[in-house]
């Protein structure tokens, strides 16, 4: 009995090691050749007031018309309340907001991708957005629990050319791979999305059903595919270097700051032109609408070089 058991164990271990080796080989990603075209910055900073002064009035007007954002919001019926909240709050500030769902819901309108696999669904959504972009040149990919301030996203990219590849958000590192955290929102320029949609056709580099025995998260798969096309993740920051994309909510960030910077809680916390927060409840998102778009102290004015008007048919902003 014992000898049978130990043979069995040896067999299991060898089989397991064999599988491990195979899958490691399968997930091996060769480093990409870097062309002289690629810009290897690791962060994208919002423009300073001086930088903006260099544009003429007519250039600014052109920029305002061009910096239009297509929001790709990935939803599921099980997150119906968040779906409804996104629809009723921040997404109204996108130039176009399209909800992409895993399965349709009678309650809310969305593009039904009819796809259970998350990576395959994301690919379909990105392709759909690319095919339907029209004149829009910036794409923002969000989850149901993300809250985005689109005007601040526009501010971040307004001096950038969308016909260059940009892949921006809160960057994280996994081994050698730098990727943008999905939960805090992913920004893609038209060129980046174009390259991505093309590399989707390459089953070697960017397989549809994912690679390796252990399924990589969509955010990492995205980063790998983009890397093949020479597009690298960049961290979105304000002019002072503060991160603009967060996977936490404002209460959580303030709480952290109360512990870490008790004498300078608000300054030590978050940017004045933050782009995303995440993990907030639907009620907290309504409060954020009020806090961002309405509540302010009388007598303090900003003479911003661009003006964004409030959206039609909305009363909570």
């Amino acid at each position: 009995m014992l000898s049978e058991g130990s043979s069995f164990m040896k067999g299991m271990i060898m089989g397991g090691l064999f599988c491990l080796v195979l899958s490691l080989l399968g997930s091996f990603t060769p480093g990409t050749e870097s062309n002289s075209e690629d810009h290897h910055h690791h962060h994208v900073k919002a423009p300073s007031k001086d930088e903006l002064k260099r544009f003429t009035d007519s250039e600014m007007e052109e920029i305002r018309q061009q910096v239009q954002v297509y929001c790709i919001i990935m939803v599921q019926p099980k997150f119906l309340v968040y779906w409804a909240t996104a629809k009723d709050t921040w997404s109204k500030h996108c130039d176009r907001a399209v909800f992409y769902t895993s399965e349709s819901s009678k309650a809310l309108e969305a593009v039904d991708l009819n796809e259970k696999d998350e990576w395959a669904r994301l690919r379909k959504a990105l392709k759909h957005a690319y095919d339907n972009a029209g004149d829009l040149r910036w794409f923002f990919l969000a989850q149901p629990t993300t809250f985005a301030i689109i005007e601040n996203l526009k501010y971040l990219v307004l001096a950038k050319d969308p016909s260059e590849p940009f892949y921006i958000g809160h960057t994280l590192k996994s081994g050698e791979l730098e990727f943008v955290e999905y939960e805090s929102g992913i920004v893609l320029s038209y060129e980046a999305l174009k390259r991505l949609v093309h590399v989707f056709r390459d089953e070697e580099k960017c397989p549809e059903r994912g690679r390796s025995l252990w399924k990589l998260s969509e955010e990492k798969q995205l980063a790998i595919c983009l890397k093949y096309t020479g597009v690298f993740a960049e961290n979105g920051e304000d002019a002072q270097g503060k991160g603009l994309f967060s996977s936490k909510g404002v209460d959580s960030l303030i709480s952290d700051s109360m512990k870490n910077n008790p004498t300078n809680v608000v300054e030590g916390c978050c940017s004045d032109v933050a782009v995303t927060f995440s993990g907030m409840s639907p009620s907290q998102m309504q409060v954020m609408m009020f806090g961002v778009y309405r509540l302010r102290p009388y007598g303090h004015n900003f003479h911003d070089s661009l003006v964004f008007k409030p959206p039609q048919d909305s009363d909570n902003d």
Partner: protein
Amino acid sequence: MCPGGSPVQSGEDSRMADELYKKVRILCWVMTGPNNLEKKAKHVKATWSRHCNIVVFMSSVDDPDFPTVGLGTKEGRDQLYWKTIRAYHYAYEHHGHEADWFLKADDDTYVIVDNLRWVLANRTPDEPIYFGRRFKPYAKQGYMSGGAGYVLSKEALRRFVEGFKNKVCTHTTSVEDLAMGQCMEKVGVKAGDSRDTAHRETFHPFVPEQHLTTKFPKSFWYWSYCYYPISEGPNCCSDLSVSFHYVDATLMYVLEYYTYHLRAFGYRHRYQPPSPKNYEILDSVDSQDASEADAKEGGIKEMASEGKGGGEGEHLPKLDKGQEVNLPPFAEKGPPAVPPEKRR
């Protein structure tokens, strides 16, 4: 550090706020106690009270380190009116000439002092008037919610102090806000309307989340207390809200972040509040900016000129902030037999 008390963001034009700081001087006194200094009052001190012209933290005992003024009372809910009486007397005696308006707030009230200055800018401190979140029961002209904070003109404060000297006002009840309302009525101080030009409330007895998203049950006392019609949802609250209540430490900093820091770049607010009279030169956009704005918006004027009421899409009759809104009195339901205990 500019006179407003908080650091200014780069590119921020605070001339109007600075002008109001000089012309509408506010003394804030904060009701606190020795057990709440670290938990609550400390965070008030680190946030909104910096924007007052003068701030005094009132406690039962002196604390030279914080600092707090000792009122010589005990602590406890039944002491609230005693503390209020003594606090206002202290403010009058020590700072009567240094301020025009005298605000009472709790250590869990968050106040946006710049917005209070806007509400008060068209008034004068010589008027016998006070402002806050108006409640209607128990007093003919109503009274102001204690937790949401209320502000007395200098003349109102003078009459309050006189009233106690002449025994016209006494310690009638420990329900502080009601007692204050009864005294104000006796000495001829008017209960003002603090709503903005779109009829939205500025002083709030609860946190923003509750006013914006909660559907209060119809049996909740709030429905029968509010002097003006209640709005749920976005219309609950003015863009220029002045106060919120039941604000814990974290929310103090969150509100400071929302009010003074976080914004949407370039966003043109729906509600364009009219400038106070005699201040319009500072509030209007520079001529250079105006022409830029014209070019960018295709001719839509950015100027906030005097007398312009409401904002985009606001089709309400233009009201001077000085004008009282003559709403029909609500049908008298009769007061409940026993005034309910108010949570503090």
